[in-house]
């Protein structure tokens, strides 16, 4: 089966059109909805990273919240510092009796350094983690559980170091970035356009990666790691590569999301949010990058509209979605769309023998006993 990522250039058309349409949203959407779309598209960038690692690479990452948090906190620390009068410390530091700015906060007084850190810090963290887990051929199950433990440790650490991280409440009350006021309408429009732009770039990058030799090897490792090894490749570098890319995507998403929502807190980086991120991708279709983006936006729109009115119902629904998506539609919305398109394109009389093999969710998991 040809992974959807390598399909013909025609499949670029719909995503490209949608990106353009959404980029012009400030002209036709109310500010509140604009904000929501901005937030959800930022999360979608992270989801595309999960799609790369999980859908293309066959490794389920359950700790993407960590990289999201690293990117988010890196920018939030800068936003917190510039919002202060000269020489003053952030409010939570004063409450906790911290008298001097900790050393690791110092670089974040510079906006450029902070923006660079939103990419570099998650990248380094992802690189170290990926090197440790992929080097010794740990199974994907182990990796899933270790990344989950990492999410737990990271969130606990953030909460407990209240004096230097803002603790449970996280960082909020931001003011300006690069001198532009964040509440300003013009800034909002810019922020929206930048977010869509970054998402489009990330999408294009991830798709282009799929067409390279490295990208093909990633998928090959998913479908038959030992066969790839017998062919003379070491799978580890390719797995590390996608893991780092996913980490960077998550970091960018964290930074953009922080700008849109005006807050970053441990509630967005722990075990529960990290696994929820995976379900966005599962709903959209794990092997489809654009599906991951759409799935993220849809699930979050649903969450936003349902959870505020019936919080109980939302949790039941979320549980049911986890079960149903896995049992009934392992290929998600993108898979459903593809088989629908395939049925439209197919001449009536001939039943294609290929329809059977496209039903498999991921080759490796379906064939190994």
């Amino acid at each position, binding site marked *: 089966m040809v992974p959807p990522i390598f399909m013909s250039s025609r499949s670029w058309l719909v995503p490209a059109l949608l990106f353009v349409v959404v980029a012009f949203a400030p002209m036709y959407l109310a500010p509140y909805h604009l904000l929501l779309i901005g937030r959800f598209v930022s999360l979608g960038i992270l989801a595309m990273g999960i799609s790369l690692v999980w859908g293309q690479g066959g490794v389920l990452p359950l700790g993407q919240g960590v990289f999201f948090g690293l990117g988010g906190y890196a920018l939030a620390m800068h936003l917190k510092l510039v919002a202060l009068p000269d020489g003053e410390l952030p409010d939570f530091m004063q409450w906790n009796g911290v008298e001097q700015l900790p050393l690791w906060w110092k670089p974040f007084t510079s906006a450029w350094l902070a923006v660079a850190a939103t990419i570099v810090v998650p990248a380094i963290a992802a690189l170290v983690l990926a090197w*440790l887990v992929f080097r010794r051929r740990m199974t994907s199950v182990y990796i*899933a*559980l270790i990344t989950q433990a990492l999410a737990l440790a990271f969130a606990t650490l953030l909460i407990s170091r209240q004096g230097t991280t803002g603790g449970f409440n996280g960082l909020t009350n931001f003011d300006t970035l690069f001198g532009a006021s964040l509440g300003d309408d013009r800034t909002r429009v810019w922020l929206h356009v930048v977010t869509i732009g970054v998402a489009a770039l990330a999408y294009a990058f991830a798709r282009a990666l799929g067409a390279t030799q490295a990208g093909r090897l990633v998928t090959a490792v998913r479908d038959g790691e030992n066969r790839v090894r017998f062919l003379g490749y070491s799978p580890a570098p390719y797995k590390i590569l996608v893991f780092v890319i996913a980490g960077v995507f998550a970091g960018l998403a964290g930074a953009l999301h922080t700008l849109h929502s005006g807050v970053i807190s441990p509630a967005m980086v722990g075990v529960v949010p990290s696994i929820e991120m995976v379900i966005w991708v599962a709903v959209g279709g794990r092997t489809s990058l654009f599906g991951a983006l759409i799935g993220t936006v849809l699930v979050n729109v649903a969450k936003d509209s349902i959870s505020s009115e019936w919080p109980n119902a939302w949790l039941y629904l979320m549980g049911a979605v986890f079960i*149903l998506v896995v049992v009934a539609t392992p290929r998600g919305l993108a898979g459903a769309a593809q088989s629908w398109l395939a049925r439209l394109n197919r001449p009536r009389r001939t039943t294609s023998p290929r329809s059977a093999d496209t039903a498999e969710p991921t080759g490796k998991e379906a064939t190994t006993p």
Partner: protein
Amino acid sequence: MSSLALALGQLFDGLSVASILMLAALGLSLSFGLMRVINMAHGELIMTGGYLAYVAHKLIPQAQVAFGLPLAFLGSALIGAALERFLIRRLYGRPLDTLLATWGVSLLLQQLARNLFDPTGVEVTSPDWLSGSISFDSGPLAGLALAHIRLFIIGLAVVVLCGMILLFAKTRAGLHIRAVNQHRGMASALGVNTRRVDLLVFALGSGIAGLAGGALALIAPVTPTVGQSYIVDAFLVVILGGMGTLRGTAIAAILIGLLSAIAETFTSISFAKVLLLLFVVAFLQFRPRGLVVTRSRALEET
């Protein structure tokens, strides 16, 4: 308090944490080893056990241990059996998918508990014979106090472990379980009903989780999220011990329990979590498949 007494006290605390961890991890490890199933709802089976112990306490206050623990075991085992029969059986061979689906189950069970019981937690008062402690007032161990309740939990863990070892080594069902664990296809060809073995092991593991919950209810309030707080540590035990081995799970539980007790004395609880994770990741660099490895000639392993 002498430093010896202090050290022994820490050792004792570590052992009691290890006991709970082992009870929580046994079922995970068995179903993981046998079926390659990652049961994220395992924590909620612990929670179910806790709530059942609470219900037992409400019904018959004087026999809460004699009645509560068996009820917790049976109730959780039943839920586990239903879970295996109706959900997990459809997902064999897709371990990462079982993880997501059972996470959904765990959300449902948690929310159900929130709606059925007080969301802030319910309390079970432990009976008189469990509320005291053995304390040393003089001699080299002056100041050391061993709470009865923790001794009881350690005892429970030892009994369960011995029971499992006997089951595995001496009974026909145990023979079948070991056979399926070694080579599912061959066991099936020789007439072992592998589906029934799966169901049995899953229900048994769930029941043990229920026992852990029932025991936990005696020390701390039962909340809808009590399972969540143990599940990640229990998975670390499974990873460290190696899939599907009783011995590995038991050793790993003791290691992790003691290490976290030591780390918590010298640093904070949150930092101890980080250290524990680092330890497990570092250990896996040397033994990527855990402490005790089930040998297999299969090339592809999930």
